[in-house]
Structures are given as C-alpha cells and as structure tokens.
C-alpha cells in the first residue's frame, strides 16, 4: 500500500498550474459562450439553456454522433488486436529491432494533413496505386463518389496511421518482462497461448489501458485527416463530430450553439473514458 502523504502535492503542483492555465481558462470561456447569443463582441444576450435544448434535438448532430460511435468502435476493434499481434511479431534482438522500430513509427511522424494528402493521392483511380489496383481488379472503387468506399478509405487510413502507436506501446510493455518468466514458462512447457495469456497479457494491461483510451479519444476527435481526404463527403458519409462542430463555429460563426455542442461532445468523451477507466482499474484492484 502506498503511504499517505499530502506533501506529494508539491510535486504535482507544476503540472497543475500549467494545465490549469491552458485548460480551465479556455473551458470557462466556452461555458460562458454556451449560454449567450452572440452577434458581435458587444451585442450578446443571455439565453440560458436554449442552445443545449436545440442541440439535443438536431437530427444532423445525432446523425454525426451515431457515425462517430460506429467509427470509433471499428477503429478500436481493428487497431488494438492488430497492434498486439504486430508487437508480438517484432524481432527480439539483432539489427531487426531498431530497423522495425523506426519503420513502424514512420506513419506516426507524418503531419496529419499530409496523411490525408497521401491517401487522397494513393486512392485515386487514375494516379494512385491503391485506387488504380482496385479498379483494374474489376472493383468499382471511388472514394469521392461512393459513401461505402469513402468510409472504408478513412478507416484504412486510420489503421495505417495509428496501429503503430498501439504496437509501440505494447512492445515497450513486452520488453519489461524479465527473461526469467519465459525460462520458467519453458520449464513448465507452457504453450505459446499460455505464455501470452498468463505472462504477456497481464504485463501489457497498463500500456493497453493507455492505448485503448488514446485511440478512443483521438478517433472520437478526428478532424484533419478525413477533412483533407474526403471533406466529409460524399454527402455527409464521413462528416464526423469535430467537422460538424468546426463548420458551426468557424463556418457559420454560431459561437453560442458551437460552445454548447462542444461541451456536450466533451461530456460524451468524458463519460465513455470514465467507464473504460473505472472498469479497468476496478479489475486491477481485484486481481
């Protein structure tokens, strides 16, 4: 059991001050906006909860909310298992280690707008490798006009972009397992599944917790990549929440409504992450 000591607050204080400056002040501004109707900085009216009521019944928002949930679910369902598989397949020693680490992390280092650009080009049927290949295989693939293709392209792009993050976190978790564990497992003639289930997976729990939450949060806030790739189209097939929000805030300059929307948005992420968080730490305490 960890000792109880309130002096530990001194160690946390710098983080608290720094984050409070860039989080609490802007957050209060948003709350302030969300209860006002703003025409220009000097003409504003207090409207109470009207924006919130309007938002919660807006079919356009509910649509993009649904789309967002399905998308984040798909992202997690593909990337977490794939990331673990990749981490387990990494070479353990030799030249292959730095080589594959560097190659793996390449997609993470590409600025997000460039990620969109790359897939925009590579998916085109005239000058892009993937689009051209799919079409010459006889599939009628066009991400700009077919909603299903657009959706699939955004998903594959996300898998390409982010699976390495899960893999890298899992890999560094795996490296912290002492050799002795594996030796003991070999003496006990444990199957490779048993090694995974009883040695590797428990050690991975901490990093997986981080990976799942990061992927959930980031996929739920995705903006730049689909915006560059499809612009939200065709129609509204790939218009996710952040884009709806940005359209509202910057496109229509509807600040009050956008602020109310972003608070609700924030609360949804908060709620889902809290559920993940408590479920996982709860297991931790029992197990």
């Amino acid at each position, binding site marked *: 059991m*960890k000792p*109880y*000591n309130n*002096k*530990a*607050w001194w*160690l946390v204080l*710098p*983080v608290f001050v*720094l*984050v409070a400056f*860039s*989080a609490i*002040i*802007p*957050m209060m*501004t*948003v709350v302030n906006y969300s209860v006002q109707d703003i025409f220009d900085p000097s003409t504003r009216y207090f409207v109470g909860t009207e924006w919130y009521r309007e938002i919660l019944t807006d079919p356009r928002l509910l649509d993009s909310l649904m789309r967002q949930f399905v998308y984040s679910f798909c992202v997690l369902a593909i990337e977490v298992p794939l990331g673990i*598989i*990749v981490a*387990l397949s*990494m*070479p353990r020693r030799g030249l292959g280690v730095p080589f594959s*680490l*560097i190659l793996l992390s*390449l*997609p*993470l*280092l*590409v*600025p*997000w*707008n*460039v990620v969109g*650009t790359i897939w925009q080009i*590579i998916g085109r049927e*005239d000058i*892009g490798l993937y689009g*051209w290949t799919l079409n010459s295989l006889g599939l009628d693939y066009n991400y700009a006009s077919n909603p299903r293709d657009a959706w699939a392209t955004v998903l594959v792009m996300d898998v*390409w972009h982010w699976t*390495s993050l899960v893999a890298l976190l899992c*890999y*560094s978790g795996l*490296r*912290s397992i*002492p050799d002795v564990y594996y030796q003991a497992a070999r003496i006990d003639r444990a199957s490779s599944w048993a090694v995974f289930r009883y040695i590797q997976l428990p050690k991975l729990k*901490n990093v997986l917790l981080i990976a799942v*939450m*990061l992927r959930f949060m980031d996929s*739920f*806030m995705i903006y730049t990549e689909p915006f560059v790739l499809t612009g939200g189209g065709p129609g509204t097939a790939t218009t996710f929440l952040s884009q709806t*929000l940005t359209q509202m*805030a910057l496109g229509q300059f509807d600040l009050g409504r956008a602020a109310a*929307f*972003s608070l609700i948005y*924030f609360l949804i*992420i*908060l709620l889902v992450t*809290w559920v993940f*968080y408590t479920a996982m730490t709860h297991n931790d305490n029992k197990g």
Partner: protein
Amino acid sequence: MKLRKSLVMLIYLLFVLVPIYWLVNMSLKSNREILGGLTLWPAAPTLDNYRVIFTEPTWYTSYLNSLSYVSMNMLISLLVALPAAYAFSRYRFLGDKHMFFWLLTNRMAPPAVFLLPFFQLYSAVGLFDTPIAVALAHCLFNVPLAVWILEGFMSSVPKEIDETAYIDGYTFPKFFVRIFLPMIRPGIGVTAFFCFMFSWVELLLARTLTSVDAKPIVSQMTRTVSASGIDWGVLAAAGVVALLPGIAVIYFVRNHVAKGFALGRV
C-alpha cells in the same frame, strides 16, 4: 513459428511503407508527371521540389519554427511531468485519483472550439505568434500523456529501491536525479518521443496561434494551393522533409526502448 512471425511483420511493414514510398516517389516528380498518370517510380527524377523548400525563406523558417516549439514543449512536458508522475506512483494524497483523471480529461477536449478561447487568451498575455505560445498550448495534451506514460514506467520500479536509498542517506532530489531517473530512462525516452510526435504533427492549434513570425511547417504546407491548383510535388517534398526530425528522434529512443529490458530485472 519464427517464420510466421517474420511474415506477419513483413506484411505489416509493407502496408506501412507503401504510402510513404508513394510520398517520396511523388516528391521526386514534376507536377506534370504526377498528374500525367500512374508511374511506379519517377521517369525523370528531379530535386526541384526540394530546392524550393531549402531556398525559399518561408519554407525553411517555418521548418525551424516547428523544431523550436516542439523541443520547448518536449522539455517543459518532461520537466513538470517527472516529479508529478513520481508523486502519483509512490504516494496517496488528498484528491490524487481525481487529479489523475482530471489531467486525462484535458486530452479529451475537442480542439475545434478551444481555438477561439486559446486565441484570445494568448493574445491577451502577449504571446500570440511566438513559438512559446504553441509550446504551451501543446502542453494541454502532452503533459497529461507524459504523466501517464511515466507513471506506468515508474510503478514497475520496486518501492524498496526508494526505501534503501533513503536509509543510505540520500535526500530526495539526489535520489531522484542520481538513482531513479537513470532507472526509468527507457520510459523517459519513450515519453519524449510521444511528446515530440504529438506536437510535431498537430495542425489546428499550431495554425491558430501563429500568423507570420512563428508559422509552423504544417500550416505552411496548407498554403501550397495556388491559382494553378495544388502544387503536389512541393507538398510531397515538404512532407518528406517533415518526416526527417522524427526519424532522428526515434533513432535515439530505439536505444532506450531496448534498455527497457533491464527494467524488469531490478
């Protein structure tokens, strides 16, 4: 078994590399060739696109601007996150769990509507269009992440190490710097890498908080659209150049990650 693993790895790496190859391929072509049709490698390789980036001041200064705010952010994040992560991993204190979760919530705030408040805040304190403004804004998501990753690494170091050091007469700062930090070096390396990465690739905040003097490379890249359409070649070359510092950083981290092995043996 071994073969199957290598095969999985190989297929995955291929999946990762093909789009990157396409970017490099494109950066070596002229715009006419890019839009002319599908070619697997440049027919007439040219470095013109790179020449534009290294000779035009708007391009190379934006590159340096990005490097400066990213390194500032990395430094600030690590400096404040290290003691905090230690506190979380070793002690219980009033409101610790709430504090930990609150930190995390800052990573969940959708950046889109924070743009305007951020703009107003940093203009009010006179930091608008400086690298430090972007560095501070990026702390919003990097500091919580750093605390998180470091806490995970620190918790795997047994508490007995701390106790023994105190019995041996070490003071806290001396123990922390001389004994504890070297032990979690892999964790620090990985954390630095993640801070670097998330700060380097972020577009929305970096673009909003800068205009001319501190314009980052990512926002310079969104300005390649001209009357004649998008300048794909220069855009691709800029993308390739933007990859390079990241490769350097991950090259250093590679050593630390490999040393992660020793962590469990303590």
